[in-house]
């Protein structure tokens, strides 16, 4: 266990190396909050109640989405891409630990780091300039926290999938660039999926993306009923199980392939 915690600690330290690298990503989060809440104000000025959600609820959605987004920033995909390109992945295989688990701990390190660095400033910014992002119902908080953790794990598995895909298809370059716009639209981190046309929602029901951002956020603003929330969290867990099994099989395949490539 200690060796994994060490990896986590190294990640946290290496991210605090340059001050500008801390300030500007934070600034971007502020800008996002302003953009999203401005758009909702603009839209709601015409129509005070859209799909049963009010403007304060929507602003809370935007703020909490930014907070969840800054927490769930994983690097496994980018890391795999660079290690693959530079060949350092070979060294990883020599290390006496389970590689996938060590990558997971690297990203847990990233998440702890993001939480420490960004959570308080973003929350303060939102409280001062927009509003206090209170949940609809305080009793929902434990379920929300659970849902966020599942969301983080689900996002990590999606990143791992694209990362392993990068390892298999080295020539395709950085596949993360395909993942990001997919997530931006299909996960409802910005515009919730209930705004989208019916066919789009039908497709998204059968994909895991919707269960990343939208589920915890809808629970938080009270868009989902209690039973609906429990069901959604259940589906999150099902997706995680499915993806875990798939990733395990995929990883076994990738490992064999890599070893063969190395001669």
């Amino acid at each position: 266990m200690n060796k994994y915690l060490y990896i986590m600690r190294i990640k946290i330290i290496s991210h605090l190396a340059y001050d500008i690298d801390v300030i500007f990503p934070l600034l971007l989060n502020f800008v996002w909050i302003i953009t999203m809440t401005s758009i909702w104000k603009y839209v709601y000025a015409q129509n005070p109640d859209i799909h049963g959600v009010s403007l304060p609820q929507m602003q809370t959605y935007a703020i909490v989405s930014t907070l969840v987004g800054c927490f769930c920033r994983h690097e496994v995909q980018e890391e795999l891409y660079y290690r693959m390109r530079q060949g350092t992945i070979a060294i990883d295989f020599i290390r006496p630990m389970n590689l996938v688990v060590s990558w997971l701990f690297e990203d847990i390190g990233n998440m702890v780091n993001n939480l420490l660095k960004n959570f308080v400033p973003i929350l303060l910014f939102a409280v001062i300039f927009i509003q206090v992002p209170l949940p609809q119902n305080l009793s929902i908080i434990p379920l929300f926290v659970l849902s966020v953790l599942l969301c983080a794990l689900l996002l990590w598995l999606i990143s791992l999938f694209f990362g392993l895909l990068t390892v298999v298809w080295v020539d395709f370059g950085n596949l993360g660039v395909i993942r990001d716009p997919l997530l931006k639209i299909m996960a409802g981190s910005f515009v919730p999926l209930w705004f989208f046309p019916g066919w789009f929602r039908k497709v998204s029901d059968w994909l895991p993306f919707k269960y990343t951002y939208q589920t915890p956020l809808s629970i938080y603003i009270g868009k989902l009923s209690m039973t609906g929330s429990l069901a959604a969290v259940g589906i999150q867990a099902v997706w995680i199980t499915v993806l875990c099994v798939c990733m395990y099989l995929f990883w076994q395949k990738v490992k064999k392939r890599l070893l063969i490539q190395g001669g």
Partner: protein
Amino acid sequence: MRCAVQSWFEYPLEMLCWIIFIPLYSFGGLLLLKVISTQFSEIGGWTFHGLAFFYGLGIVTHGLHVIFFFAVWHTNYMVLNGEFDRILLYPMNPFFMFIIQSFNIAGYIDITPGIIIFTYACLKLNLDWNAVAILKLIAVLIGGTLIRTGIFMIAGAIGFFRDTRNAVTNFMVDFLAYNTTAFPLNIYPYGIQVILTFLIPVGFINTYPAQDFMGMDNTFSIPINLSLCTLLVGIAFFLLAYGFFRFGLKHYKSTGS
């Protein structure tokens, strides 16, 4: 320049990845605009086709910027790697050398979805394309490209003063792509519109030109023709950014090695 083109074909399949990603991102943004614009009928005068015109214009200037000035995105990495030293050794204007090194033919992938969206919007809007309108469009495209380049030059030049892993540039990439050229500025509160017009002139990239072409009012009632204004602001801002870049260059200390 030939080398720069060839190095892009080193990984031909990587190109394919970008060919999938960039349109996905561009049309994804358009889908968001469509979804949002169905929620309001006529506020601020933006219809969906007007927004498509605005959005397409933004992407076309982005494409032009990426084709001609992609080098400025990498200033910080070149400083950190020490590659910038090599450029300073050439017996030419370092900035010119810097730009010429990375003429980026792959920018056609960026510009194509923009042209498609822009053409679609023009067809739907039934704009009158007389000589004046075409001249205005050219002025807007040049101005918008120069503003974008100026922004990235300033962002990159910050790396001459403080070490950074491209944080300012990455900030600007997202800031321009998602926050300011993807949505018209008049959705923002007044104070922020002031910043985005007079401090960082992103409004002139596509919000004001689109409003000009559609005969809409702008927040600040700028008296000069907005398209002409874009060109002037573009040139002025580019020169300012160039000055800052040169100033930064004087401060530049090699990372050594």
